[in-house]
């Protein structure tokens, strides 16, 4: 891997964000709005649902963490879509750039996006609802890292689908992640799911992170077991999805789709 090729892609996206209001809004405005709306709903419900301990803590914490996963996925997929919209894929794939460098650059973009969004959301939560995400404690960091990786997995998966099926599959960039939301058990514990769905949710690394978050917040217990599951599942899925991305690139070159994907 060559660093100059990865930074070339990053610089290209930074140029883009520097002068695009809609793209800046994607980072600042929407997450902020999300937090404000859900924050008020949480406060309202908390009045009547006081029997659920730490309701606000659960809900706002979950909301912020879920948004990190979402933005991580978006960081990957939107970076690819930008190239597709700009009809720039041919320039990139006919250059010495390797698929691994392309993926690394999009992952770096995703980390930058998550960082910016997290600061906005955590800051707003503190300001408007006196909610401090840091109450999750030292576990917060490994939780966030794992959610970012789950976001990458969904992002690379979605990118491969768009590459393979073309612009018709573009809508997946926004909808795919929500397919995972019910089985991520973001706002409710895993046990409320029907048994058959619990089995599926168990294979989802994000579900273990949100379970872990509730374990820490409600019982103050160690979520090490959840974290171990999340790390293992993330490791396995990341390897699988990257291999699938490589296969998709090969398939597209075989069928002449790489140059037509933007058409």
């Amino acid at each position, binding site marked *: 891997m060559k660093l100059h090729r990865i930074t070339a892609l990053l610089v290209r996206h930074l140029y883009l964000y520097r002068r*695009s209001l809609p793209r800046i809004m994607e980072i600042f405005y929407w997450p902020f709005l999300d937090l404000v709306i859900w924050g008020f709903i949480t406060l309202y419900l908390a009045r009547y649902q006081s029997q659920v301990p730490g309701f606000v803590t659960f809900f706002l914490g979950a909301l912020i963490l879920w948004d990190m996963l979402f933005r991580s996925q978006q960081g990957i997929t939107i970076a690819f879509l930008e190239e597709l919209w700009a009809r720039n894929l041919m320039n990139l794939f006919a*250059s010495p750039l390797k698929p691994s460098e392309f993926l690394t650059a999009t992952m770096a973009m995703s980390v930058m996006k998550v960082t910016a969004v997290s600061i906005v959301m955590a800051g707003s939560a503190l300001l408007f609802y006196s909610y401090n995400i840091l109450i999750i404690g030292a576990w917060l960091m490994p939780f966030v890292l794992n959610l970012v990786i789950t976001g990458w997995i969904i992002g690379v998966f979605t990118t491969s689908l768009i590459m393979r099926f073309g612009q018709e599959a573009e809508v997946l960039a926004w909808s795919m992640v929500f397919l995972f939301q019910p089985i991520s058990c973001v706002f409710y514990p895993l046990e409320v799911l029907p048994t058959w769905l619990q089995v599926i949710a168990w294979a989802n690394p994000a579900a273990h992170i949100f379970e872990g978050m509730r374990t820490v917040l409600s019982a103050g217990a160690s979520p090490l077991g959840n974290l171990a599951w999340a790390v293992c599942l993330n490791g396995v899925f990341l390897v699988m999805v990257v291999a699938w991305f490589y296969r998709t690139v090969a398939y597209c*070159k075989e069928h002449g789709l*790489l140059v037509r994907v933007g058409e």
Partner: protein
Amino acid sequence: MMAIPVLKASALTKRFGDFVAVNGVSFEIRPGEILGLLGPNGAGKTTTIQMLLGLVTPTAGSIHMFGLDLSTHREEILQQVNFSSTYISMPQALTVEENLCVVARLYGISDRARRVNDIIKKLDMEEFRSKTTRKLSSGQMTRLTLAKAFLTEPRILFLDEPTASLDPDIAEKIRLLLKEERQASGLSILYTSHNMREMEEMSDRIIFLQRGRIVAEGTAREIIDRFGKADLEEVFLKFAREQRQAS
């Protein structure tokens, strides 16, 4: 003694399902040579170029550049190759200069600012260097994609209808520049165009493709004489009509 070719395509074939787009095509390009690739719509020119750029995997045959096999030395080869086509674009929200800077980074060019400046001057792009790419006219856009191709100082350049949307003055400038570059640096060029006069003027040798096969090869003069026609345009029309009748 003949110079060693910088590019050698051997029995290159591409099938899309049952359809054969390129069928056993073999050719070479020598250092400093301009090779014209001619053929009617759908003859397989773009598919051939895309295989040479590693964007489409050949079904059979091999591609060697600078003595290296493209299937195993993609990175080394593509570092020394570039292309420009009327069909590509560049990120629209970036300025001309920013786009060129990104390309310079991508190819690991040191002294980026100077090189970008030089190429902007060379292609007469100063007046729109700070414009966002979205605002360029089609001729200016073509100049930008040519600039990105020249910027990396390639040893082989693939040009798919490079002068298609340029006014005659700029088109002439570009043709001069291409000739100068090949004189100065031994640049080799594979060139497609539907402008037959330009083809005759520019190409040292021409390959005619028809339904994926090479049907004629040689200098423009040789091809014209071989088919007993008045000029290249007449030869082209003959092949185009034959292809249409067959399909």
